[in-house]
C-alpha cells in the first residue's frame, strides 16, 4: 500500500475544491436551518442557479465574468423571493416541500431541450467561461508536495475559494452574534412568541432565505468555475442532502461547523475510497469481497454507517452542545 499517496489524496481533498463547495452550501443551510429553523430542502437549486448564472451569460451572451457573478446573486435573490413569498407565511413543512420541488424544477428546466441553445440541455455547458478568472492566476505551475497536490487552476480556485469562505464565515459570525442573530434564533424557537413581541417574522425569515440562498449560489460559482462546466444532474437532491449531512456532522447553529463538517465529509470519502482501492489492487482485500468497480459504491455504504454511528453516539455533531440538543424536546 502506498500510504503517502493515500495521505496526499486525502489531505488534498480535505481542503480541496469539493470541500469549499459543500462548505458554502452548508453555510447557507446553517443560516436557514441552523439559525432560523427554515427547512430548505432545495439548496441544490440555489447552487444550480449560481452555477448557470456564471456560465450562461459568458458563454451564451458574451458578458464579462464579473457581470455574471452579479447576475448570479440577483438570480438567487429572485429565487429566494419566489420560494419565500408564498410559503414563509405557512408552517415550516410547507417550505420543505416547496423548496425540494422548486430545486427539481430548476434542474429540469436547465436540462430541458427547449433551452438547449442557451442552457445546454442535459449535457450542460462546457467552455472557457472562467477564462477571466484563471487569467488572474499568479501560479504558473501547480503545487506538488508529498502531502498536497493541486494543479495550477485548482490551486487558484482553492485559494480564492477559502478566502471567500473566510469572508462569509466572518460576516456570519458577526451577524449571528448581533441582535439580528438573536431574533433569528428566536424565530427558530417559536415564531408566535416573536410576533407577540412586535417583530415582523415574515420579513426576517425572508432575509434568512435570501442570505442563505446567496451563499449557496456562491457555492455554485465555485462548482462551475472549478470544473469549467455545468452539468444539470450534479444539482440533484443528493447535493442538498449531502449539504445537510455536512451541516449535521459539524453541528447545526455553530458558525464553523459547516466548514469542519465539509472537511470531515470529504476526508472520509476520499480516505475510505483510497484505502479500499489500494487494498483491492494490492490483493489485500480479496476479489470475491470487493471488486475494483465496487469501491466507489462501497465507500458511500461505509460513510453511511459512519454517519449512523455519529448520530447514535454524538447526535449534536462535532461542535454541538448535547445539553442544548436535549432542550429541543420542548420540555
Amino acid at each position: 500500500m502506498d500510504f503517502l499517496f493515500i495521505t496526499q489524496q486525502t489531505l488534498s481533498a480535505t481542503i480541496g475544491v469539493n470541500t469549499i463547495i459543500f462548505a458554502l452550501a452548508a453555510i447557507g443551510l446553517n443560516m436557514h436551518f441552523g439559525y432560523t429553523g427554515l427547512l430548505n430542502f432545495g439548496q441544490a437549486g440555489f447552487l444550480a442557479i449560481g452555477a448557470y448564472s456564471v456560465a450562461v451569460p459568458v458563454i451564451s451572451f458574451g458578458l464579462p465574468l464579473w457581470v455574471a457573478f452579479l447576475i448570479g446573486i440577483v438570480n438567487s435573490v429572485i429565487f429566494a423571493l419566489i420560494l419565500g413569498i408564498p410559503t414563509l407565511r405557512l408552517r415550516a413543512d410547507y417550505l420543505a416541500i416547496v423548496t425540494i420541488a422548486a430545486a427539481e424544477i430548476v434542474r429540469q428546466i436547465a436540462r430541458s431541450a427547449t433551452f438547449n441553445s442557451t442552457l445546454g440541455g442535459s449535457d450542460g455547458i462546457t467552455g472557457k467561461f472562467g477564462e477571466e478568472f484563471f487569467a488572474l492566476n499568479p501560479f504558473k505551475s501547480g503545487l506538488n508536495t508529498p502531502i498536497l497536490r493541486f494543479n495550477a487552476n485548482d490551486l487558484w480556485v482553492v485559494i480564492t475559494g477559502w478566502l471567500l469562505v473566510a469572508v462569509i464565515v466572518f460576516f456570519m459570525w458577526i451577524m449571528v452574534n448581533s441582535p439580528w442573530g438573536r431574533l433569528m434564533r428566536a424565530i427558530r424557537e417559536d415564531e408566535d412568541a416573536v410576533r407577540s413581541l412586535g417583530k415582523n417574522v415574515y420579513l426576517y425569515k425572508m432575509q434568512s432565505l435570501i442570505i442563505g440562498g446567496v451563499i449557496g449560489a456562491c457555492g455554485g460559482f465555485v462548482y462551475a468555475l472549478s470544473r469549467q462546466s455545468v452539468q444539470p444532474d450534479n444539482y440533484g437532491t443528493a447535493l442538498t442532502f449531502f449539504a445537510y449531512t455536512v451541516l449535521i456532522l459539524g453541528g447545526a447553529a455553530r458558525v464553523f461547523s459547516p466548514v469542519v463538517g465539509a472537511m470531515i465529509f470529504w476526508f472520509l470519502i476520499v480516505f475510505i475510497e483510497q484505502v479500499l482501492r489500494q487494498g483491492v489492487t494490492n490483493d489485500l482485500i480479496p476479489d470475491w469481497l470487493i471488486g475494483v468497480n465496487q469501491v466507489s459504491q462501497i465507500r458511500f455504504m461505509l460513510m453511511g454507517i459512519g454517519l449512523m454511528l455519529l448520530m447514535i453516539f454524538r447526535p449534536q455533531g462535532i461542535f454541538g452542545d448535547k445539553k442544548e440538543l436535549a432542550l429541543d424536546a420542548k420540555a
Partner: protein
Amino acid sequence: MQRHSDANMDFVAVTAETPGSAKPDPILIADHITRTFGGLTAVNVAHLEIQRGSITALIGPNGAGKTTFFNLLTGYDSPNSGSWTFNGLALNGVPPHKVARLGMVRTFQLTKALYRLTVLENMALGARGQKGESVFASIFPWLWRAQDEEIQKKALSILDNFKLIDKKDDFAAALSGGQRKLLEMARALMVEPEMVMLDEPMAGVNPALKQSLLEHIKELRNEGKTVLFVEHDMDMVHEISDWVVVMSQGEVIAEGTPASVMKNEQVIEAYLGAHHNVNLSAEGGE
C-alpha cells in the same frame, strides 16, 4: 396603589353590571365579533369595553371561547365578522406584530419561552426599535452596541424585580413551568405595552410563585397599564381584578365586580350546569 384603587372604584361605581356595559374611559372596544369553526360558533361577542388602567378578568367554563377571543383581538386569528378598536385605532386585519407595536402585548396559555435562548436573551428580544435587528446594521456592531447594552441593563432590572436574575444565563428551557410564566410576563414588559393580555398566567404555577405573580400584575396597574387576563383560578380573580367579564359558549353573559359576578345565577349555571349547590365565591369555593 391607593390612588389607582380609588380611580378604579370610581369606574366600578359608575359602570352598569350588565353584559356589554359602557365604561367611562375604554381602551379596547369590541363590536359584533364572531368566529366560527365549521358549524361551531366559538366566539360571538356583541359588545365589550375594557376600562383603561383596570385589571379585568375574563372567565368562563372550558370551551367558552376565551382564548379564541384573545387570539382574535391580538391578530393571531381573524374573525368572521366584527370590528374592534384599541386606543381608537381599528385593528381589523392588523397582523400580530403590529398589534404588539401599537401597545397591546399578549402572553400564551401554553407558555412560549424561547427554549434555546438564555433568559437574558429572551428578555432583550422584547425591546422595541433595536438598531441591531436590521440586517444591514447587524454587521456594524458599533452602530448598535451601546443601545444593546442599555437594553441588557433594563432587562436585568426587570429580571431582578421578577427574581429571575440568578437564572439570567440559563437556557429558558431550564426554568420551571412557573418561572417560564414569570419570564414570559417579564419579556412582555420589555415591549413597554399599554395593555397586557395574559392567557392563564397562573396555570401550573406553585402557590409561592403565584403570590409573586399577583404582585407583579398589581404593579402593572399601578404603573397605569391595562391588564386583561384569562383565568380559572377564582381566588386570583377575586383578589386582583377590578372587573370581571364572564363568557360562556362564545358570548359575554355577565359583567361586574368579582363579588357580584360570582353570585350571578347565570354564571353559576354556566359553570356548573343546572345541578348546582356550590358557592363560587372565594371563601366558599375552596
